């Protein structure tokens, strides 16, 4: 049991965590066995092998990413009640935890952790003490909770896992002889491809013989398992040193998948049946992190085709949405579980807006809740720093705009999209990024500038470098540099200028490059070589010539490689950077 829990936790390592733990019990016990540790999973593994073996027929495990209380052994999950009879793991945030702690404290309960989660086992224990059976006690406890949660609880003396979900992902894996439970499919994907997603407000009881789902009112829910298509073979590093490097190299494949069956170059047509009914007067794109940069890019593409469009940070949109109830609201999230994006989309739905999910996760919360879903088809992304999914988001947004607003350029754009896999392979084969990284690995700061469609590339280039190298990096629209940030530019701070083509944007960006040169800053040009920007550059990262709408997908690949190689030279934890989680399921 413990081995299998550890195996599942290791499959979820990619989500990022700072502590981990397991709990196991069986019907003949009066306490649950709990082992937990702050730090890497390896620490917990050591603890498991040092201690008396835990055995049992039901178990729960957890990797924690701190929100309430620092990463310590005590704050790691599972949490137990005072008697050690109940153990609980929890994702999400219990917003009324302070009030509940105070109330329980008034009844004489002593808390041992600083977490919001600990109120749950204590509440369950209180209801057990009041004579309720474990399931009734669990439901009564959950009924008191406000906030977001995916909860799993075990009670000594029983062999059931009690489960509840509200605004946090939870999925069951079904086989003939076991039932698995996880916040994401990879946790048990090696055991089964049959899954049942739990919906908000639902409960489940998982037992050795199977499971039962009930809705908030307690009525049984009959939901047949779905088959997930993700191949477990995609969840290993395959000889690459990091998942991030593997995923960078998988981009040609990911984009082939994204384009397959959707483009007809000869006819100049894109077919996306999933959005055929949408004809928006305007578009709001909501996202956070890397996906937000895709949103900025997508908004530009829409505006270029005459459709008013704007990108928003989803967390800002959720608290102060702009006017425009006739807007199509597009939520962009790789995992489909990003709490901020979900809350932005929910706010839009509350106001009656049509919604579209652009996501990588079939069956994820965003895809289920939005009116329509456009899948980017990247396959699982394990590295915390998004790479192939950003390229696929950019590609999918191009397809979306082509399908909603075709024009004379469509055929040329489609041809360039079809050339993307080969063009990216060329960059992977020939990139000078390792040499650029070697030249600037010790720089005190890095700046990225780009204009128009290359502005989001500048933002993303900086974010990627920050995330995995822990170096200070900032991206700006090229024209903004002289309005302030130029004060930070010195001969020690490399400036990455993203310039393709020879249009006005290129000419003006080259003007900004000259401003930087005058301050003796080293310049790295990311370019297709059509302009003379190379004359002002100390280093060149070359991309193949492509359609202007498509070129930002290529320039970004060069910056991914720079970030990777800088982080690698600095010895950073590339696949699991400090303080960051793969999918941010809290607001």
């Amino acid at each position, binding site marked *: 049991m413990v081995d299998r829990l550890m195996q599942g936790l290791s499959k979820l390592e990619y989500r990022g965590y700072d502590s981990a733990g397991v709990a196991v019990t069986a019907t003949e016990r009066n306490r649950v066995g709990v082992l937990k540790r702050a730090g890497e999973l390896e620490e917990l593994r050591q603890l498991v092998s040092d201690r008396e073996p835990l055995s049992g027929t039901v178990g729960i495990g957890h990797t924690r990413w701190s929100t309430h209380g620092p990463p310590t052994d005590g704050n790691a999950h599972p949490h137990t009640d005072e008697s050690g009879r109940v153990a609980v793991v929890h994702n999400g945030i219990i917003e009324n935890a302070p009030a509940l702690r105070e109330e329980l404290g008034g009844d004489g309960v002593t808390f041992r952790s600083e977490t919001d989660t600990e109120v749950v086992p204590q509440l369950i224990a209180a209801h057990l003490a009041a004579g309720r059976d474990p399931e009734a006690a669990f439901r009564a406890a959950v009924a008191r909770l406000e906030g977001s949660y995916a909860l799993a609880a075990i009670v000594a003396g029983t062999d059931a896992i009690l489960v509840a979900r509200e605004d946090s992902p939870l999925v069951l894996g079904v086989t003939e002889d076991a039932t698995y439970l996880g916040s994401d499919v990879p946790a048990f994907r090696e055991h089964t491809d049959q899954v049942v997603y739990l919906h908000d407000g639902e409960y489940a009881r998982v037992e050795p013989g199977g499971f039962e789902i009930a809705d908030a009112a307690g009525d049984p829910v009959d939901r047949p398992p779905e088959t997930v298509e993700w191949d477990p073979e995609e969840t290993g590093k395959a*000889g690459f040193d990091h998942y991030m490097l593997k995923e960078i*190299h998988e981009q040609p494949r990911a984009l082939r998948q994204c384009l397959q069956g959707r483009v007809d170059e000869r006819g100049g047509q894109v077919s996306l049946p999933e959005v055929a009914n949408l004809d928006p007067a305007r578009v709001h794109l909501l996202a956070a992190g890397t996906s937000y940069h895709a949103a900025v890019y997508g908004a530009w593409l829409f505006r270029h085709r005459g459709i008013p469009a704007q990108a928003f940070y989803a967390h800002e949109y959720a608290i102060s949405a702009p006017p425009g109830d006739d807007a199509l609201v597009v939520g962009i999230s790789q995992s489909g579980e990003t709490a901020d994006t979900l809350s932005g989309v929910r706010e839009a739905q509350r106001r009656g807006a049509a919604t579209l999910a652009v996501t990588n996760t079939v069956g994820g919360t965003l895809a289920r809740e939005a009116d329509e879903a456009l899948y980017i088809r990247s396959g699982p992304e394990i590295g915390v720093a998004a790479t192939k999914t950003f390229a696929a988001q950019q590609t999918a947004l191009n397809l979306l705009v082509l399908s909603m607003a075709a024009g004379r350029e469509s055929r040329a754009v489609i041809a360039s999209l079809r050339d993307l896999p080969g063009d990216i392979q060329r960059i992977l084969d020939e990139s000078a990024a390792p040499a650029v990284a070697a030249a600037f690995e010790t720089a005190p700061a890095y700046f990225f500038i780009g204009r128009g469609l290359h502005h989001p590339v500048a933002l993303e280039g900086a974010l990627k470098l920050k995330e995995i190298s822990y170096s200070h990096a900032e991206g700006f629209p090229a024209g903004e540099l002289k309005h302030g940030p130029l004060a930070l530019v010195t001969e020690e701070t490399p400036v990455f200028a993203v310039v393709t083509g020879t249009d006005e944007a290129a000419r003006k960006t080259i003007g900004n490059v000259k401003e930087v040169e005058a301050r003796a800053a080293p310049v790295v040009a990311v370019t297709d070589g059509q302009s003379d920007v190379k004359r002002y550059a100390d280093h060149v990262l070359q991309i193949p010539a492509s359609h202007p709408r498509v070129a930002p997908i290529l320039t970004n690949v060069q910056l991914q490689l720079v970030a990777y190689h800088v982080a690698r030279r600095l010895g950073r934890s590339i696949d699991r950077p400090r303080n960051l989680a793969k999918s941010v399921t809290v607001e």
Partner: protein
Amino acid sequence: MKPDCGVVLAAGEGTRLRPLTQNRPKPMLPAANRPILEHVLETLVEAGVGELVVVVGYKRDRVQEHFGPTFRDVPIDYVVQDKQLGSGHAVLQARATVDGPVLVVNGDRVIEASMVEAVAKRFATTGSPALALLEHPRAHEYGAVRLEGDRVVDLVERPAEGAFRLINAGIYAVDEALFDRLETTPRTDGELGLTEALAAHIDGGGRLEGVVTEGLWADATYPWDMLVLSRAVLEANRASHAQTSPGVHVAPSASVHETAVLEGPCVVGPDCEIGPGVALGPNAALGRNATVGANAIITDSLVDVDTRVGAGSTLIDCVTGQDVALGAGTTVAGGPAEIAFHDRVFHSAALGAVFGDRARAGGAVTAEPGALVGPDATIESGVVVGGQVPPGARVVR
């Protein structure tokens, strides 16, 4: 005990296949429309191998990305051979990863599962290392073998013509003792061949089983051999997609205009676009996402992944690398050709032209028979190109 693990040697570049190997090792070159190595792994899995070890080196990212951590649910371990110091050295790199007897095959040659099965079976029944043999009319060009009964008594590289009829087919079953033998076999010019260790094993009084096999056994030494290899794979019906008519294989995601004529054997990979009036085949293989413009004619040719063939082009006996762009009206009229290559002159090679990865040809370029255009070279419109064009060169009128 039957060996459950297959060790595949895929670290070498294959320098005689330049310029096709600029960006990937020889095992990743296409036999018809998928890599040679994919055929090899498929063969091992068909033969019942439950564990794969792939020895990688030159441009290993390409191998690792293509196959990932498993092939048809069989786990793959990648072992890195940094310097290509012979097949024996390559096998030794895998020693720490494997446990018990193993099958060893080359990653750059298409073989049949029955050959692998026969070698595995012989090893299981005799407990001695075993080697697949083939009858070959030109045994003197290969590693030849003399057999007494079932026992190999002599291994000779490139013997005198007519002295031998059996060759080493490059499929081995070996055990721990042979790994030990490899550790102690002296290197020749820094290199260690697997056959040298086997010869030392025989000289030391050890028994080496020879298993005479037959079937598809095809590889490529020079660029023009790629066409022969592809033809062999097409004729053996080992293209990757279901037939749409006899000998014609078209991936479901490919788009073929209704007026295009496909003549088998031929294969059209996923995501390809074939324009109106195109005549494709016989013996034509299009890799994934290739684009063929209206009225092009492609016969006895290999068109690799992401390549564009312009409208009205004629390609006969032509090999393209990946992401090549040939303008409208490109003419490759076919072999035979006389080719001076690697200090040798090859007479009557069946080659129209080779275009290395990402070569670009403008409109109405004509290739003289045997033209070898390097990767990233640009041929401007209207040029008649012949001989060898270096990588990255620009050829103007």
